[in-house]
């Protein structure tokens, strides 16, 4: 990616706009805007044409209605980048089954995916600067635990899950306390923000490898009465299916 006169477009599908506001909030966006790279961005301006864009960022999940539009974008743009968990995995809205929302890669070929709900600012800026500098964008290949202040986990496997959410202040690894946390199987990059701020990790950055969920679940003991809610939580970002 990169080049001298990259024209960038931002396409909004079904989501919450949070990923696009995160892009606008990022330090790199001002540079991109000032250098005239932003050619199409309906959130900020009416004029502009997506047809001439070299790189199109897509936010939100796709409905059936969006298919022709995405196919047209694919035919014209050199790169399509899915931004956020809705575009990458279907996201929270894809949990409403009858909406039929899909991740972008299920509709057209995607060149790069930047997950997160929303994607972390440092990753957004690093990705946007690749458009200006031509540098290569690199994913983190470690898990959320590697960024977690409560790392390492001293729990002994199998871990018995007692709670789905942390109750009150916690000072050590949530799994040690029997709280469900997807940190071990989720790709890093978010600095374990949810865990730091009192939630668990719900996997918005995506699985570190496709088989990791099955491997992880094999290490947990989930009481019968929690299974339904665990399924809900594992499905939260639309990427994983857990059949108990």
């Amino acid at each position: 990616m990169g080049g001298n006169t990259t024209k960038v477009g931002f396409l909004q599908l079904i989501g919450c706009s949070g990923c696009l506001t995160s892009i606008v909030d990022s330090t790199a966006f001002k540079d991109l805007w000032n250098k005239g790279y932003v050619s199409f961005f309906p959130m900020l301006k009416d004029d502009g044409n997506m047809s001439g864009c070299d790189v199109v960022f897509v936010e939100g999940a796709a409905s059936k209605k969006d298919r022709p539009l995405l196919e047209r974008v694919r035919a014209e743009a050199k790169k399509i980048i899915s931004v956020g968990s809705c575009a990458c995995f279907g996201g929270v809205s894809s949990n409403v089954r009858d909406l039929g929302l899909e991740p972008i890669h299920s509709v057209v070929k995607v060149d790069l995916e930047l997950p997160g709900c929303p994607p972390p600012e440092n990753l957004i800026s690093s990705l946007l600067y690749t458009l200006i500098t031509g540098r290569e964008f690199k994913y983190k290949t470690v898990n959320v635990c590697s960024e977690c202040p409560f790392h390492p986990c001293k729990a002994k496997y199998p871990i018995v899950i007692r709670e789905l959410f942390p109750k009150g202040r916690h000072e050590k690894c949530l799994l040690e306390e029997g709280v469900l946390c997807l940190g071990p199987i989720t790709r890093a990059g978010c600095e374990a923000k949810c865990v730091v701020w009192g939630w668990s990790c719900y996997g918005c950055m995506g699985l570190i490898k496709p088989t990791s969920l099955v491997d992880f679940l094999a290490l947990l003991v989930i009481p019968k009465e929690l299974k339904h809610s665990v399924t809900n939580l594992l499905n939260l970002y639309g990427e994983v299916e857990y059949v108990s």
Partner: protein
Amino acid sequence: MSLKRVHPLTRVEGNAEVAVKIRKRRLQELELNLPTLRKFENLLCGKIIDVVPLLVAKICGVCPFSHQVAASMVLEKALNIDAPPLASNVRRLILTMEHVRSHAYNTFLMGLQDSARLLGLNEKELVYRLFRSGLNIIRLADKVLSSIAGGPISPGISTVGGLLKMPNIELLTNQLRKEAQRTLEDMYWALNLSKNLTVSKYSEVFNLEEMPTLVTSVGENYDPIANTLKIHEEGYWKKLDDLADIEGLLSRSVLTGPFARATFTNLRLKVEWQNSNLLNLYALRILEIINALSYSMNLLKDLKDLKAHYRENPQEESGSGRCFVEAPRGTLIYECEVEKSIVKNIKIITPTEINLPFIKMFSRNVVEKSLAKDLALQDTIENLKTAIRVFDPCISCATHVEVIE
């Protein structure tokens, strides 16, 4: 017959579309189509209550914490607990900074093209200064929200019974004091500029024929979680707590948001309100930003004196409740029924949904007036887009509205 489809219309997700049919320079039809529904309420039913504040923050990336605080409060109401005073004040602070961020987006970024057109700003420097002022105030709000809630969009710290974590108040106070001074100068400059909107080239078409009925839940001194709904009719404010009356709001042409808040708190007296023109909303939002900064500083002073207890655990598992939170666009209403800690029913009425009948009526008026003034079709369409976006670019957050007209 001229049929003009305007797409995208809104500045946020989903990109609503408006179709306008004009015959012999008279408006025949105006149809506002909303994007695919996300049916968030369906998603919430059957969920364990603890996940609800997390999920509803995904309804809107511009105002996530209004939803999160509203969900926390309605569940507290249903389970008959009160959040500790410290938690309520932190929530006030979070919502106030969210108002700042959302207003900055609305006024300086999403609304920039509209205001630049109306003011005839041809100088690139001036338009860029407005854009930069917006980005600076957004950065300030982002920093504060990152210190207090883990970020401007997520994760958020409001949950059933209070907060998940207590932010570092001292750090926050220093940060806000240092940064607020820098941005205030820009805000006063933009405020003066925005006052010219009501005497600008097309301003007449944005005049209101009569004062709309106003609705707000804001408390005196700008409290965003005062949790009482008020309606302004025949010159008086009265409390609205009958369920039928509240549901009836959705079929009436009422207006919620800065206009209503400013009337209730007398903030609008600070704007030269020589006519009832909807373009005053630009100035009102900037005034609200300025106001919010001093309100936040006062809140921070109070926070230091409160005991560090910030969460109550509910003892009951079932019940129902309703709450009103003042979101940036206006009053946000949540109703919820809980059974054994599981959401049985939930209803979310967003400010956008309350405003929709008014938006529809007002946008028709703007088109009719533009045509009557013999404006070109392109100018008429631009005025229509401005009319919708000036007070609400967030059509898609109306969670269960389908098609208007």
